[in-house]
């Protein structure tokens, strides 16, 4: 099947490329189609664009959002590699939101995984077309022409033509078929596997990078919005007299509340429109607003926690069953059980949600820090009642995302306000808005039970969880976890135990629940890897040796049906064993026995198709203060494109994981979120974060897997396991800040 076609119509691409440029459109299957296995019926989605200008400039479209992973640079290097382009002559352009690119939803740690092949094919196709164009020009066989470093060379005659000179004739060449393409061997790579600097590197340390909050449109006004403190609360009345007295305030506008499900719709509220951000914020503080809070005012974190714990103490719906757990427990041998709890968490990206919209003549122009510009199109179109084709969404840099900026409620707010006031409007969320109106990481309780043989090894393993599902975003009646959430480290536990059952109990949502960096793996990994550590201690065995014993011999684990993804990415315990051994060796595990107040902790977790093992060193001083001198992470993510950026992701994940383990907690009372800013929703600072994270990458030619998220899940259990080894205190409830360790 032909996976690349030549597009010569300039209009198709807008003004990004000049009329004579050679432009390639690579096409890839959406992952959903791959997973369903329904390949033949699946639509071909164009996704990747690459063009060669007649001056030799190679333009590569970055269609995924840049929020710190380096993806906007790293995906284009793959295409440049196969094209054998000179990176200095490559220009990366950020794509606007458009379904023609395929999925632009930059989450799930899948940008490289899903677009690696497409990028390679785009580069290899362009290279072959350039070679064919040169061969035709010189009247020699194409086999004698080789593209290298931005020019095609005919060896025997020493003739050469630059990519720019060849762009126009190459565009006349028919698109090569997939089977005609050749790809470089890894030995020939100039960019893949090298620490290529990101294109935004200089801008990001000189204040030149433009984020959503920095975007400007001529004639723009600024908005601050007062929203119901309880999800779904209705506006009873408001008085804006004092607000309108603030110099710079122009007017107020009511944004209607949503009808469930809340989806990505605006929450509703009263907006203050002003000539600058500060005036809008000051005006908002002077609003007098009365809300009818509604049913979610009953939400109280203390009683809800108890409810979740009671749920997991009782048998629930089985979501994975191997052997017969009940029969094994009925034998009456030694058992161990434990309960764990992880509170709500907030994303708290350093850039709060912000967007600029200009709505006029039935069209919306948007500049937004968004992980998903196509969701912006859908959401804004629905809010305004226009066709999504009339929503043009430009993607700025994102000042952090972590899943928050996949949900474009804040963009729809800007669009509705712009329509209302007839001017471009910038909406800036305050930090208080960000903390109080997030799509929170869920709150969860887990119950674990094992029957143990004489060596302390489990013969039966039962795990039960309950948490409100993020799918309540799309269906308000959802009352149990989705397969996707349970597939994150719950139904795919790769342990070699003959009897295993995973269960999930019901839970209602009272705040917006969303996906946060590594999602349900957070609570699942915390419970499972804390419990493994408890069992190793009971068995009086070395914790790494015990973990390896549970993982068992190298084999492919048969987990829930994962369709074609499972063929390309089988869950291989040999790779998990390998990273555990690597992390243990790198940390000096064998030689560093726990001492009072200082010890190592280990956890290993498979997520986003990547195998990760983490050893954390923790010190607890006489006052109970925790210090994390060192983290060793070993990971197998298949082929790695940019090792430095992968290391950066795992360094960052160690800090993110430490934040949630040490201090992350969102609570509600009377349906209102009790935290509001960084003083009471704490995240790790430089003096609290792990001091040194050493990242050890497995060299592999396996298909690339995820790197943005899988570093997070092992951190909290590894920290808590180290604390147990150092102090004898077993922490089963996060965050650590709530516990007295000495």
């Amino acid at each position, binding site marked *: 099947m032909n996976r690349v076609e030549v597009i010569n119509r300039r209009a198709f691409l807008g003004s990004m490329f000049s009329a004579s440029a050679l432009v390639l459109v690579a096409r890839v299957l959406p992952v959903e189609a791959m997973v369903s296995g329904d390949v033949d019926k699946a639509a071909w989605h164009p996704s990747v664009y690459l063009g060669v200008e007649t001056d030799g400039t190679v333009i590569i479209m970055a269609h995924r959002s840049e929020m*710190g992973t380096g993806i906007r640079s790293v995906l284009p290097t793959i295409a440049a590699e196969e094209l054998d382009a000179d990176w200095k002559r490559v220009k990366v352009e950020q794509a606007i939101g458009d379904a023609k690119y395929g999925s632009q939803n930059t989450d799930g740690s899948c940008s490289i995984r899903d677009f690696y092949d497409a990028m390679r094919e785009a580069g290899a196709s362009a290279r072959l077309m350039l070679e064919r164009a040169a061969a035709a020009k010189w009247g020699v066989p194409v086999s004698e022409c080789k593209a290298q470093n931005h020019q095609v060379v005919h060896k025997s005659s020493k003739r050469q033509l630059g990519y720019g000179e060849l762009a126009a004739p190459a565009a006349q060449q028919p698109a090569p078929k997939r089977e005609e393409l050749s790809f470089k061997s890894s030995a020939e790579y100039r960019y893949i596997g090298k620490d290529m600097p990101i294109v935004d590197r200089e801008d990001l*340390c000189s204040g030149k990078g*433009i*984020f959503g909050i920095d975007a400007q449109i001529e004639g723009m006004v600024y908005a601050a919005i007062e929203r119901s403190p309880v999800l779904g609360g209705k506006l009873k009345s408001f008085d804006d007299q004092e607000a309108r007295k603030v110099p710079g305030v122009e007017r107020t506008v009511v944004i209607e509340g949503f009808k469930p499900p809340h989806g990505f719709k605006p929450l509703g509220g009263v907006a203050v429109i002003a000539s600058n951000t500060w005036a809008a914020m000051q005006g908002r503080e002077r609003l007098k607003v009365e809300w009818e809070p509604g049913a979610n005012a009953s939400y109280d974190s203390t009683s809800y926690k108890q409810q979740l714990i009671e749920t997991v103490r009782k048998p629930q719906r089985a979501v994975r069953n191997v052997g017969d757990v009940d029969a094994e427990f009925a034998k009456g041998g030694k058992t161990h059980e434990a309960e764990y709890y992880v509170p709500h968490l907030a994303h708290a990206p350093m850039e709060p949600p912000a967007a600029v919209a200009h709505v006029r003549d039935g069209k919306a122009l948007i500049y937004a820090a968004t992980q998903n510009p196509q969701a912006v199109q859908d959401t804004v179109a629905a809010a305004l009642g226009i066709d999504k084709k009339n929503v043009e969404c430009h993607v700025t*840099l994102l000042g952090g995302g972590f899943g928050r900026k996949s949900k474009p409620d804040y963009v729809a707010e800007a669009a509705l306000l712009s329509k209302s006031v007839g001017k471009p409007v910038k909406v800036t969320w305050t930090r208080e808005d960000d903390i109080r109106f997030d799509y929170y990481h869920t709150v969860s309780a887990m119950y674990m039970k094992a029957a143990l043989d004489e060596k302390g090894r489990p013969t039966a393993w039962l795990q039960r969880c309950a948490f409100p599902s993020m799918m309540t975003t799309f269906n308000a009646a959802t009352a149990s976890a989705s397969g996707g959430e349970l597939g994150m480290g719950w139904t795919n536990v790769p342990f070699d135990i003959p009897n295993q059952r995973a269960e999930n109990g019901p839970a209602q949502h009272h705040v917006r629940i969303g996906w946060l960096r590594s999602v349900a793996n957070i609570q699942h990994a915390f419970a499972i890897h804390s419990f493994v550590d408890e069992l190793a201690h009971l068995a009086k065995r070395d914790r790494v040796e015990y973990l390896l014993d549970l993982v068992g011999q190298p084999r492919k684990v048969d987990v829930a049906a994962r369709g074609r993804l499972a063929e390309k990415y089988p869950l291989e315990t040999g790779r998990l064993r390998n990273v555990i051994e690597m992390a243990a060796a790198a940390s000096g595990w064998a030689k560093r026995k726990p001492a009072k107040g200082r010890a190592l902790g280990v956890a290993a977790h498979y997520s986003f198709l990547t195998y990760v093992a983490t050893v954390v060193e923790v010190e607890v001083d006489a006052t109970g203060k925790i210090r994390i001198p060192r983290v060793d992470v070993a990971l197998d993510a298949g082929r790695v494109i940019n090792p430095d950026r992968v290391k950066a992701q795992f360094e960052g994940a160690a800090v993110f994981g430490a934040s949630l383990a040490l201090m992350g907690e969102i609570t509600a009372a009377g349906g209102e979120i009790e935290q509001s800013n960084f003083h009471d929703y704490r995240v790790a*600072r430089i003096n609290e974060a792990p001091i040194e*994270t050493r990242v050890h990458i497995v060299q592999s030619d396996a298909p690339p897997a995820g790197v943005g998220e899988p570093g997070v899940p092992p951190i909290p259990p590894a920290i808590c396991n180290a604390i147990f080894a150092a102090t004898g205190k077993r922490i089963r409830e996060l965050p650590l800040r709530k516990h007295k360790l000495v």
Partner: protein
Amino acid sequence: MTAIKINVNGKELSVEVSPDMPLLWVLRDTLSLTGTKFGCGMAQCGACTVHINGEAIRSCVTPVSSVAGKKIVTIEGLSSDHSHPLQKAWIQVNVSQCGYCQSGQIMQAAALLRQKPKPTDSDIDTAMRGNICRCGTYQRIRQAIKQAAEVKQ
């Protein structure tokens, strides 16, 4: 509103804003100097850090009237071509991930190096703990500060 005279990155400017408006919003909204970032609005995160007469301050809680006549330097004024030793070190070490907090981190670090040209780990902790990086680049920030300190010697 009255005209307030301020000196930003060596330029004498007159701005007509409410005197209680924080310097942050004058820089961003009035002067379009958007390199200085909003993160918390209550001096908790350091994203808005600029220099007033060479000292690092949080512009989100600094009324513009209080800095009239003083020398204000923002990330845009630290160097015109990212050539400050800290910016060079930031580039060499590949510190930035999303980059949003890094203007504030660099301005804070620049003030630190002015006071302590050879900072210890503890000096770095003390000076930099007011600057949050949610991406978690702290280890490279520490490395880059030390690297810049070496160069400055």
